[in-house]
């Protein structure tokens, strides 16, 4: 099931590996994405820590991971084609993380709750 945090990252989990991306709402707010700084493979981070960075013409933003763990994969295609995020934000993962503690998922919003949240912004 897809979940979201309040910093507009989405997460899907397959076994103990979580894919993390940016919500369509966030990408729309940022406008044309021009650059994605990917995290290093093997880096570990806690929930809500910033380990990647995204830039558009008019804005820049850290990517705060919604769940703690170790980075096992980064979507290198984004280095050359950041526009993939504009084309399909919800379907383009940025990094994959080996989850340390599955219970952290409980703190995240489901799609309906997230949509309701963005309505308030």
């Amino acid at each position, binding site marked *: 099931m897809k979940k979201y945090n309040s910093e507009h990252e989405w997460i899907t989990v397959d076994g103990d590996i979580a894919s993390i991306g940016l919500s369509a709402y966030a990408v729309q707010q940022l406008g044309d994405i*021009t*650059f994605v*700084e990917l995290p290093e493979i093997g880096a570990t981070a806690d929930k809500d820590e910033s380990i990647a*960075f995204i*830039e*558009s*013409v*008019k*804005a*820049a933003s*850290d990517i705060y991971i919604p769940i703690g763990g170790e980075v096992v994969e980064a979507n290198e295609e984004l280095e050359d084609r950041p526009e993939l995020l504009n084309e399909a934000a919800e379907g383009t993962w940025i990094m994959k993380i080996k989850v340390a503690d599955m219970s952290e998922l409980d703190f995240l919003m489901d799609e309906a709750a997230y949509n309701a949240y963005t309505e308030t912004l």
Partner: protein
Amino acid sequence: MPYTPHTPNDVQKMLSEIGIKDESELFATIPADLRAKSFDLDEGLSEFEVFDNFAKFAKQNDTSKVCFLGGGYYDHIIPTAVDALSMRSEFYTAYTPYQAEASQGTLQALYEYQSMICELTGMEATNASMYDGGTAMAEAALMAIRICRKRKKIIVDSGVNPIYIKIVQTYLAYHDLEVIVLDVKGDGTDIKSLLSMIDDTVAGYIFQNPNFFGSIGDYTEIIKALHEVGALAIMSAYPIALGILKSAGEMDADIYCGDGQSLGNYLGFGGPSFGILATKQKYIRNLPGRIVGITDDMNGKRSYVLTLQAREQHIRRDKATSNICSNQNLMALRATIFMSLLGKEGFSKLSTQNYNNASYLKEELSKIDSVCIYNQNPTFNEFVIELPICSAEFVSQMEKRGFFAGLKLDTVYDDFDNRVLVSVTEKRTKTHMDEFVIAVKEIV
């Protein structure tokens, strides 16, 4: 009233459009108790009277002596075209080029500036100028700290301009960082003790080549050692020296910083000059300041625009790479014109002449028995002399003979009582130098 064109008629018309009776109503929101308690200034003067005031100031300064002062600020030639072009009011009175359509002149000139600085320094990316060489160095140190996340140590070489060192220390004092300044032991870098300090806690090492004593070094071994532990090499250099000396890129330095005064800018009592900051492509997002790039417009025409603005304060606010907004654009423009006029061959030739002239004077002074050359290493266009008398006495005696003889090093270093930094540019002739040698002989 000067510089306000309003006739009484205009004022009346404007007030009635606004719907008020008197100009004083415009300030009605400012309570009486907050009004200025005093505003005791002189009466206004005509431009002619003001000019005379400043002509008097200018006369009370001394620019009449033959100048051998350097130390980061040099008396170089400035071709007339630099003034003529940079003073065109289309450049001079323009605003920051945020509206690309109305600023293609400034933007293209900056793109060319960036291109020329990259050629000169051997680096891949640069910005559209910083304030000066010292603040550029401080920003370079902050860049290194950002790039090497979690590392907190900056090492500064003993040969770095001591004024720049103070600026770096001031900028970094508010952060949880360690700035280690190496002790001066002779005119060069103490490579051995430096190598023993380089480990994976170091974010960056700052050096200057030629250094403040004028000495040239080879830093390749140090830079290799830095890179082995993931630390950055920050090189400061006087741009004219880069005409012949190894560039920052050739040394594999990660960041170049320097002062651009010598590229077509007046001494002006220290400002405005401008700062150069350049780096490798992979660090470009950590670079502060404005950057110009090429793109197409909606009709496919080549266009110049400010780019990567998401790094800057007006967008990123407290997450920006720096708070810099106004830079030294006009001085960078002067440098661009200066470098264009000199060109590939001219720049190299100018640089070589600086080296040859200074070498001549150094050689002639070394022949005087009681004068020693402090430098053990080769030098570029300045060097340190050791005198049998104190430097204050020497400088003032030389001034009486028509020379600004150099920089008294005891004002910036301990135990440097008898040492003076002497600089020679392409503007000094053999006659100047021979007379300088005669004057020195008389004094010592």
